[in-house]
């Protein structure tokens, strides 16, 4: 057992001791975690990322629901502590199914959201990341394509991989714990995070990574922690500018938000995951107007989401307010693929180069 796992285990047992002491003092067992909502995140000025504010929620045995939660927490603590002791690991989904084997029915998880949330609670309270609990998510399948040479520690030994030459069309698959990667060499000029698979494939087919020295990171929708972590490392360690390329709709702006500012759910890890220097490349509502892109009208839930973003502290910048208000005004949204209306090469020959120039990246 490494010092790290020892430490993680000690933190967990410490948490259990807290419950023990509460019982002994005749107190109602409880734990307090920061409230995970958009009204309780604030900008950490120093790191320039969004972290949880002062408001907390109490998980208390005061109610039947709360008592069940704490019971599950204790069972989970026991499981994690055993797992660390045996130097094994498991996935979040496995934890959910594994609870079925616990002797106490009350401790079984009702659904995976519940077990995921509990792991987040434990991360926050113990200040240990789930990776250090040896809990992994399922592979998100996110990939990198571009001029980057790296070394990955795998269970079958170290592998050196070049993310263009040693990989197929699909690119290099980001592992669950990107901290096992060491960057060896890179000719890249910038990082381009792309939301959709279709656009990623278009860029690769058009040789955009070669032509512009771009590291194309495929986000696959809302990016997994590993994707965000590697993006941050690419920025921090290779000093590469990071750009994010998504659809022009409110849900895609949130994808940018979680890359750049951290997500609300994992704001306790923002410092570790967020890349505050990341910039939004498009598609901007202004582009819809400028290029007269094919569009869909905004739905009610789109409008709602946009209005929510206007009150989201992460989007309270002049740039975003301007863009969101413009979008509400034109009442339209557009997909990345809408650029194809101007020809398949339009995105690589004109749109992206223009935007990159505007942003002063190349």
């Amino acid at each position, binding site marked *: 057992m490494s010092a790290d796992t020892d430490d993680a285990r000690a933190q967990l047992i410490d948490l259990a001791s807290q419950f023990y002491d509460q019982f002994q003092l*005749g107190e109602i067992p409880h734990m307090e975690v920061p409230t995970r909502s958009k009204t309780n995140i604030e900008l950490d000025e120093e790191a320039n990322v969004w972290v949880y504010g002062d408001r907390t929620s109490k998980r208390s045995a005061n109610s039947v629901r709360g008592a069940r939660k704490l019971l599950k927490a204790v069972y989970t603590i026991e499981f994690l502590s055993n797992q660390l002791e045996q130097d094994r690991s498991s996935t979040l989904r496995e934890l959910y199914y594994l609870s079925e084997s616990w002797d106490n029915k009350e401790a079984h998880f009702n659904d995976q959201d519940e077990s995921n949330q509990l792991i987040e609670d434990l991360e926050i309270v113990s200040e240990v990341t789930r990776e250090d609990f040896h809990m992994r998510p399922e592979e998100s399948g996110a990939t990198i394509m571009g001029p980057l040479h790296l070394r990955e520690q795998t269970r079958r030994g170290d592998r050196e991989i070049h993310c263009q030459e040693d990989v197929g069309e699909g690119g290099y698959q980001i592992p669950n714990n990107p901290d096992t990667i060491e960057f060896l060499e890179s000719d890249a000029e910038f990082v381009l995070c792309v939301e959709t698979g279709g656009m990623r494939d278009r860029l690769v087919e058009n040789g955009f990574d070669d032509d512009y020295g771009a590291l194309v990171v495929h986000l696959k929708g809302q990016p997994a922690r590993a994707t965000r972590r590697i993006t941050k490392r690419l920025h921090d360690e290779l000093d590469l500018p990071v750009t994010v390329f998504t659809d022009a709709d409110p849900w895609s702006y949130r994808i940018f938000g979680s890359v750049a500012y951290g997500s609300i759910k994992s704001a306790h890890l923002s410092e570790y995951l967020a890349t505050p220097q990341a910039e939004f490349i498009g598609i901007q509502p202004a582009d819809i107007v400028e290029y007269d892109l094919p569009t869909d009208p905004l739905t009610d839930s789109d409008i709602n989401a946009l209005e929510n973003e206007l009150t989201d502290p992460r989007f309270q910048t002049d740039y975003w307010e301007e863009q969101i208000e413009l979008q509400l005004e034109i009442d339209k949204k557009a997909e990345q693929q809408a650029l194809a209306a101007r020809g398949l090469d339009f995105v690589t020959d004109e749109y992206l180069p223009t935007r990159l120039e505007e942003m002063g990246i190349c």
Partner: protein
Amino acid sequence: MTSLQSTLGDEPGIAEELADNQRAISIAEFFEKNKHMLGFDSGARGLVTAVKEAVDNALDAAEEAGILPDIYVEIQEADDYYTLIVEDNGPGLTKQSLPKVFGKLLYGSRFHAREQSRGQQGIGISAAVLYAQLTSGKPAKITSRTQGASQAEYFELIVDTDENEPEISVEETTNWDRPHGTRIELEMEANMRARGQLHDYIKHTAVVNPHARLELREPKAHFKFERATDQLPAETEEIRPHPHGVELGTVIKMLAATDSHSVSGFLQEEFTRVGKKTANSIIDEFRDRHYGREMAWSPPASHESGNIAAAVENATANKGAKATTDFAEGIAETVSNRDRIAYHQLETIVGNVADTVGDDYDTTFGSTVREKALEAAWNAVLGVDGEGEDEAAVPEPDAEDSRLVTDLYRLSDDATSTRKDDEIIHAFAVRLAGTFEDLEDRRHRLTQKELEKAIDRAADLTEEYDDVAFGETARENVLESVWSVMVTVPDDPPLVRELADSRDGSSDLVEGMRATNIMAPPTRCLSPITDELIEAGLKKEFDADFYAAATRDAGVSGGDPFVVEAGIAYGGDLPAEGSVDVLRFANRVPLVYQRGACATTDVVKGIGWRNYGLEQPGGSGLPNGPAVIMIHVASTNVPFTSESKDAVANVPEIEDEIELAIREAARELKRYLNKRRSMQKRRKKQNVLGKILPEMAEKVAEVVGEDEPEIDDAIARIMNNVLVERRVTENGDTAHVNLVVENHSSTGEQLEITDIVTAEPSNLSDGASAVEMDGEWFISWNPDVPGGEEATLEYDVDQEATFDADVKGVDSEKLTVSS
């Protein structure tokens, strides 16, 4: 038609022939043909009704004699016939009255009494005898023994329906083991199909008569209902009728029968709640109706008062100039000081002034002088010339308005809306004044009805000739304003014997009684069961979890006082499916039939029971659930829908009280159900947490590697519980015991804690004392612990002693004892 007429013409004897066929019908014959009116419509029902009549009689008899009723009912089956036997321990009946009680319809002691009792008309039991003899042909066999009599009387009798008299076939003395009481045996065609109703009747009778012991023996079953109390219902007192509750015929009969000579005396003697003052108010109302009021006119203002003075002076002769002037001026001055004056008031004034002036001048104003002066003064008030009435009766068309017109114009104008044209009001006033001028009675007396007629006439004429509307409201307002200035006359009311002969006079008196505000009748004539005994009765017959009862204050309906009571039983063994049971009672008698026609059922259906925690499909109708709702209406005259006395009629005053009584009891039910619900929730929470928390503690201990932690305190806190915890510190040979009471709830709690110790304790805290019993010491405290606080009870005891604490005063769901 034509042929009949011609026949009539041809045979003048037909009417006589028809008349020969007409004859009187005895009441017994009538009911023989109309059995259903008395509840004997079928064999099944006949049996229930017969039991009911016999038992009601028995209960009344025993209670009246101050005896705790002990009633035995037996039903024997013999082929198609049933024999019904009812025995009571009442005072028994005398040889003379017995045959009539059982063998004559409408014979009884209660019909004329204003007092709460079960039976009233004296029909019931004789009707049962009649029914038995009709269906089986057998006489009723009756045994009765009065207290102290050495032997019992035995009769066999039937009702002679032609004469409505008992027809006795056997009359002898016999031996009977009861010291006093009555036994009736009836054989009748019947069946037991209405066994459910019979049982209901007996059981419900037991509920409302917790002082009675009832026994029912059927061919195949035997039931006993024991007493729940030895307390007889409060004795009722007969009351005289209330003036609001009597009808004209009754009053005429009472007038004929009374010993009083004056109406005032009659009212005070014969009616309840009538004293001197109320009698006077009634007589005033009577006067207004019988004699009418006199119109009071506004007298000439002081500057015109010379008219009166002059008129009187002219009319008075031979009294000396000075005396005459004083007399005339005296009258004029007194009159002019008044706002309005009526004829009889003027008469009094003339009389008074005549006496005073007469004394001053040592002379006498004789009756002729007074009459003349009165006449002259009255004419002056009316503004007519005293010389010739005929002249006055024909006012000149262009003449200035007469005094009467001016006066009536003012009254009418004030009373009608301002939108009415002055001209119209004026024309109306002229026409109305005409009525007064044309009155033969120069005293201007009118009853309210006559005045109304006059106003209608004037208004109709105005509508006709002036072509304007003079509507209902305007007429009513004018009537009210004129009537209100008219004055009740001082005439003495007629004597009672005069009134008795006068239907109109009696009618005026009845109307006067109704119009007068009179205090509600006294309630000592009623004997409500009382809420305590209702609860006791319900507890006795229904095994439920909760009981509530309410007794309302007495109300009045049609001059009869009444009291409504309600009770509710809930939960326990009561059937949870289907709608609740409604038990209906009138004067302690269960109502078994015609539930749907009864005011009580209507009221129960109209209440929103969801409010009170009972299910009610659709939000109206009978509620569902394990509950019994009972309603008792006690009155000197319960308004039934029919002679068979099955359903209470829908009288608004009674319905209102029924609703209030039920709601009062239902509020308690709601409180109980709410509390039960919250206790259930608490229990459920406690059950779940009681399982989860120890498991959590166990797991935590396992993870941490320690012994299991103590969790009672935490649980008590979570459940907002009251925790009683013993802490013992040893101190040499003795132990110091602390009983700590922690109240984790938000409300204060009063506890009763008894600690039972096996050795004598010392240094008891909080003023407690120890009582020894069989080598154990009982220490009691009654601490008040406010919400969120704790109290510590202490004592010292030998360290070998063992303890056992008993805590009361807190719901067990809220209590955790660890000692």
